[in-house]
């Protein structure tokens, strides 16, 4: 078994390889604007670093968000295309679940990532493996009551100390955590999400003034 996990739903462009018992290689770069440029070279380095070729991959795991759309889609289309080219399954995991797993927490807490526009993507957890709520997007002030008294992990928590006074690491998503969670779920027959993006917001239905004009003025 060789799991390749990717996640681009947060500013981290993160890739990991897992053989079912441990992480073989991983790489993460934090750059919210260059997911498209960074992801495939990272996949290449991670595989080459482990001395493996792409066709050794047996399962593709992808973080399906929620996350800012442009970056999120890079990971998803990469995972889906890889799955199609190699003829292997592509399984989705909630990005917030990866952060929760990485926290190793044993008691209730919150995961929050930056949704931009002064909002966070967030969910509540009973422990590192158990999510209690559906991922949602909200203004921090609007969820202050729902998360009161709970420790919080993720960059979204660190950004809004007013709502998340007990914010802590990990700040960024790690594909190694996502891969480890996936390996556990595969072994226990647990469920995955379809490899489809969790946008949570409807698209901005605004036609740009000069739509289709490819040389912006």
């Amino acid at each position, binding site marked *: 078994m060789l799991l390749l996990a990717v996640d681009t739903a947060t500013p981290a462009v993160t890739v990991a390889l897992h053989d079912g018992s441990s992480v073989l290689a991983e790489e993460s770069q934090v750059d919210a604007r*260059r997911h498209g440029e960074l992801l*495939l070279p990272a996949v*290449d380095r991670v595989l080459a670093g482990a001395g493996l070729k792409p066709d050794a991959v047996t399962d593709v795991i992808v973080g399906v968000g929620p996350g800012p759309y442009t970056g999120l*889609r890079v990971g998803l289309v*990469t995972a889906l295309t890889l799955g199609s080219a190699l003829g292997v399954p592509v399984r989705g995991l909630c990005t917030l679940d990866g952060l929760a797993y990485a926290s190793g927490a044993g008691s209730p807490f919150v995961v929050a990532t930056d949704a931009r526009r002064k909002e966070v993507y967030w969910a509540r957890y009973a422990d590192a493996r158990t999510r209690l709520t559906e991922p949602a997007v909200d203004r921090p002030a609007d969820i202050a009551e729902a998360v009161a008294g709970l420790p919080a992990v993720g960059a979204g928590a660190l950004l809004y100390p007013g709502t998340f006074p007990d914010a802590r690491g990990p700040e960024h998503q790690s594909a190694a955590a996502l891969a480890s969670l996936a390996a556990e779920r595969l072994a226990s027959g647990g469920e995955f999400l379809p490899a489809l*993006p969790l946008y949570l917001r409807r698209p901005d239905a605004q036609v*740009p003034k000069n739509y289709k004009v490819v040389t*912006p003025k």
Partner: protein
Amino acid sequence: MADEPLVLGIETSCDETGVGIVRGTTLLADAIASSVDEHARYGGVVPEVASRAHLEAMVPTIERALKEAGVSARDLDGIAVTAGPGLAGALLVGVSAAKTYAYALGKPLYGVNHLASHICVDQLEHGRLPEPTMALLVSGGHSSLLLAPDITADVRPMGATIDDAAGEAFDKIARVLQLGFPGGPVIDRLAREGDPSAIAFPRGLTGPRDAPYDFSFSGLKTSVARWIEAKRNAGEEVPVRDVAASFQEAVVDVLTRKAVRACKDEGVDHLMIGGGVAANSRLRALAQERCERAGIRLRVPRPGLCTDNGAMVAALGAEMVARNRPASDWELSADSSLPVTEPHVPGQTHDHQHQHQYPHDHDHVHEVAKDNLYS
């Protein structure tokens, strides 16, 4: 024939997810998924809606194209993709897919220019392009006059629109006439029953001191809208067919006049017309008439190849392979304003000469740039 390059091309610069497969200059498959219906209710292409649709359609469209062509992905000689220009988020889906596909299969990747692809697609219809070729590209996103001595390496901008694209003007007039989106086909249809000389709408940038090859459709658009408004305000019925015919005549008159003039001035005896507006029946007819008179051979691909599609990207990719152009590297970025003078984006590791022309993080710089890079 079998030793000609077999290339798969991916196009996602606007609202069509296109995957084409060609062998040399032979079209094997042209699979398209369009999100145009989703945009219709907004009256224009919504970038986020387009990007979402590209992600959904990407893999199914690749698989459909391979099936249609009856080839195995293993036999491909390369993967080509539109690297720009276009909508940044939409391009990114195609570029990411193409990279991954090429990487997983161990094939070279060619990031190519959308405009050069629009020209090169004619090879699938009329055989090898003469060198040089003059090309008039007209669509909702571009109105350019280009001289292409070598479609893989040397494309020179002669002129471009200084405001609206031609297709955009069609959409806007259709909106004023409440004919829906997109406006091109419906105006073309109504115009056939109207009088093109009924109303003398202005021909932009055709004065003796105006740039000879640039276009302007903004003044025309305003003039048509005002004319319609005046009729409505006077309580008179708007003669929709005559307006459509007269507006369309003004657009195609300027386009063909300038294109033929560019051919004559440059001593080029071939004119290629591409882009979505090339499907317009009056543009084709008038171009044919004027080219014949000037002794110029007109090449217009069938309408399905004029609009955005994957086959055109594959056609240019196959030419890149055939001429041994350097491949792109895995860092290839989507460049929303890739200049027309760059028919493809060679990798830095392959070609050090280009090292300074392709900085990695220039994407958003172009997004806010005020310059029209075509002019």
